[in-house]
């Protein structure tokens, strides 16, 4: 662990001692989408009405048993839920501490947790009578998950993707095309995820009448952070029940990687009021937090406003958003969901950094030790979970969200290691 992270841990442990004083937290956001000072709806006037329309449609859907029933059958028959919890016994034995448990989101249809959100938003789009879906994507996982549900519902799908990412993630681009989606490379700004999000917003502003914008993470203007969290919270609800059924107790710690933070909030949220369960969000420290080349907005950023919400951001001295770096395209984002910003500031969750090399080592470790190739994003969580397990007793449990599988990353890893495929 780098010294910056150690300092951060010390700081966050001090904050953790305040948790007992906190109000119950699972009721946020408030009516206007605020998590404390974070979240909100910072968009141009043209988007205010469609966001309100979406909020109302979602509130109505939540009250409709038919909507929940459709979600449930889709989760079971299309996604393959519930996903199991797997006890990584060899890895646990090797660490010599707490038992390492994996929530197997990698086994979902399309290979990651992203589908939990897209099936929910697509059903909402259908309810609202929208005939066109748009999405932004970084690594392409959310784009694929959006194209997948659009194909299934027979709705047109347009995916905005940074031109740099289109180059880096050619296989996912082709997957989206196979699924019938149109992929539009974005050439403005840094030509990556944040610019794809800008462009998708611009499309939405101009086409709100027939278009539904499926945001892929727990960021963006209200109600998106809440919407995406609720659709992903199936992960935490299942995990909580599975732990109680099998072990008769809750885990001692939850660990999940955080880019925008959708898989982490999905796991964390149903545990927020379980004060004895420690929550660890793992950010991408890239080439090191002191290198300036990372994507750790909570570990190294400060509060600001981007993409419709107030949250922690990585910026320069003038408040301009800076380019980020991570080995994992899915964590390569200069902001983070507002609920994470709030959990960070209240100390309910602890955020740490894992760098490229540590993530890569964990990628190999899990592959060789358990026969599971994790996504590079999830490998960040594995790396920190391994460290944490060493510090805990053998009768304690660390539950790590294995948010996606690593098939999509084999080319990246091979290239990094100088292996031609």
């Amino acid at each position, binding site marked *: 662990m780098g010294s910056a992270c150690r300092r951060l841990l010390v700081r966050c442990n001090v904050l953790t001692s305040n948790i007992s004083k906190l109000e119950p937290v699972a009721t946020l956001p408030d009516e206007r989408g605020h998590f404390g000072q974070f979240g909100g*709806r*910072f968009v*141009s*006037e*043209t988007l205010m*009405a469609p966001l309100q329309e979406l909020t109302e449609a979602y509130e109505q859907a939540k009250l409709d048993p038919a909507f929940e029933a459709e979600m449930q059958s889709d989760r079971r028959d299309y996604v393959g839920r519930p996903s199991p919890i797997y006890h990584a016994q060899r890895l646990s034995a090797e660490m010599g501490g707490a038992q390492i448990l994996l929530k197997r989101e990698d086994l979902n249809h399309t290979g990651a947790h992203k589908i939990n959100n897209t099936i929910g938003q697509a059903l909402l789009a259908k309810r609202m009578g929208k005939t066109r879906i748009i999405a932004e994507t970084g690594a392409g996982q959310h784009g694929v998950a959006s194209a997948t549900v659009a194909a299934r519902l027979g709705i047109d799908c347009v995916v905005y993707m940074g031109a740099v990412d289109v180059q880096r993630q050619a296989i996912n681009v082709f997957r989206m095309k196979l699924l019938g989606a149109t992929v539009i490379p974005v050439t403005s*700004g840094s030509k990556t995820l944040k610019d794809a999000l800008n462009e998708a917003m611009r499309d939405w502003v101009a086409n*709100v009448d027939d278009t539904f914008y499926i945001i892929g993470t727990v960021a963006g203007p209200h109600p998106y952070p809440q919407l995406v969290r609720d659709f992903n919270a199936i992960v935490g609800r299942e995990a909580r029940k599975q732990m109680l059924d099998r072990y008769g107790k809750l885990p001692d710690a939850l660990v999940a990687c955080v880019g925008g933070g959708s898989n982490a909030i999905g796991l964390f949220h149903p545990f927020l009021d379980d004060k004895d369960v420690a929550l660890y969000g793992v950010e991408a420290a890239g080439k090191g937090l002191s290198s300036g080349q990372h994507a750790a907005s909570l570990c190294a950023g400060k509060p*600001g406003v981007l993409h419709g919400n107030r949250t922690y951001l990585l910026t320069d001295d*003038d408040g301009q958003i800076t380019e980020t770096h991570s080995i994992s395209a899915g964590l390569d984002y200069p902001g983070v969901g507002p609920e994470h910003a709030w959990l960070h500031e209240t100390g309910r969750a602890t955020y740490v950094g894992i760098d490229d090399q540590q993530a890569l080592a964990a990628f190999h470790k899990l592959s060789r030790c358990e026969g599971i190739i994790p996504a590079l994003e999830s490998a960040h969580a594995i790396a920190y979970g391994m460290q944490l397990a060493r510090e805990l007793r053998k009768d304690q449990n660390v539950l790590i969200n294995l948010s996606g599988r690593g098939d999509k990353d084999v080319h990246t890893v091979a290239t990094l290691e100088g292996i031609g495929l």
Partner: protein
Amino acid sequence: MSSRIDQRLAEMQASNRCALIAFMTGGDPAPELTVPAMHAMVAAGADIIELGMPFSDPMADGPVIQRSSERALAKGMNLKQTLACLAEFRRTDNYTPVVLMGYLNPIEHMGMQSFAEQAQAAGADGVLLVDCPVEELDTSGEVLSKHGLQQIFLIAPTTSSARLSEICAHGQGFLYYVSLKGITGAGSLATDEVAASLRSLRTQAKVPLAVGFGIKSAEQAAALANDADAVVVGSALVERLATATNAAELNAAAAEILAPLRVAVDDTRRNFAA
């Protein structure tokens, strides 16, 4: 003392003229050409200047203004320098109102209080925060008001009637009606519909009405000049200014875009009066 914006729009109204508001991005085509470009716009007929504070992620702007922000930032422009340009402009023009337009993040990074002080000292008259709807204004509104900065708000075709009254209650200087669903500089404009919307907005508004987003031609400006107190031109101007490399070229560029609009809105009002 009434503000420069109020004063200028009152003068225009008194002489039955529609004002022309010209937008440019601070630092584009180059930081050192910002002040000459502002003077060029005034010389070419602009009554009010909107000075864009460049941002790396201008979500509400179309490609033309995005690229102009990117060019400005690439040349090292920042918020402090944008305010410095305004201060320099004020040394020779203490009359033309200037509205600072931009996104929240660079301003909050500087600190709202500090920004308000510096903007006032530089000679700004109003602030338009594109990504800060009236609901999120919080204490910022007071801070800006305390420093004599009027808050300009956008109104969109989709704005609900409840929000409309809220915005009308807060809006100062002028209300900026967004003439199309979409981003700046986009699409084609249904000027008849826009004019009808302006007439309906007029019944609630306490301040003059400006209209913008997608106004490119003299015909469009003319079609709106009777129902709007001011017409805003942005992308078309920014695109033309971008090709200039010195003060003379800036004057020519500004004149090429603004002069026909000036004539068009003035003729419309004269004909209407006659």
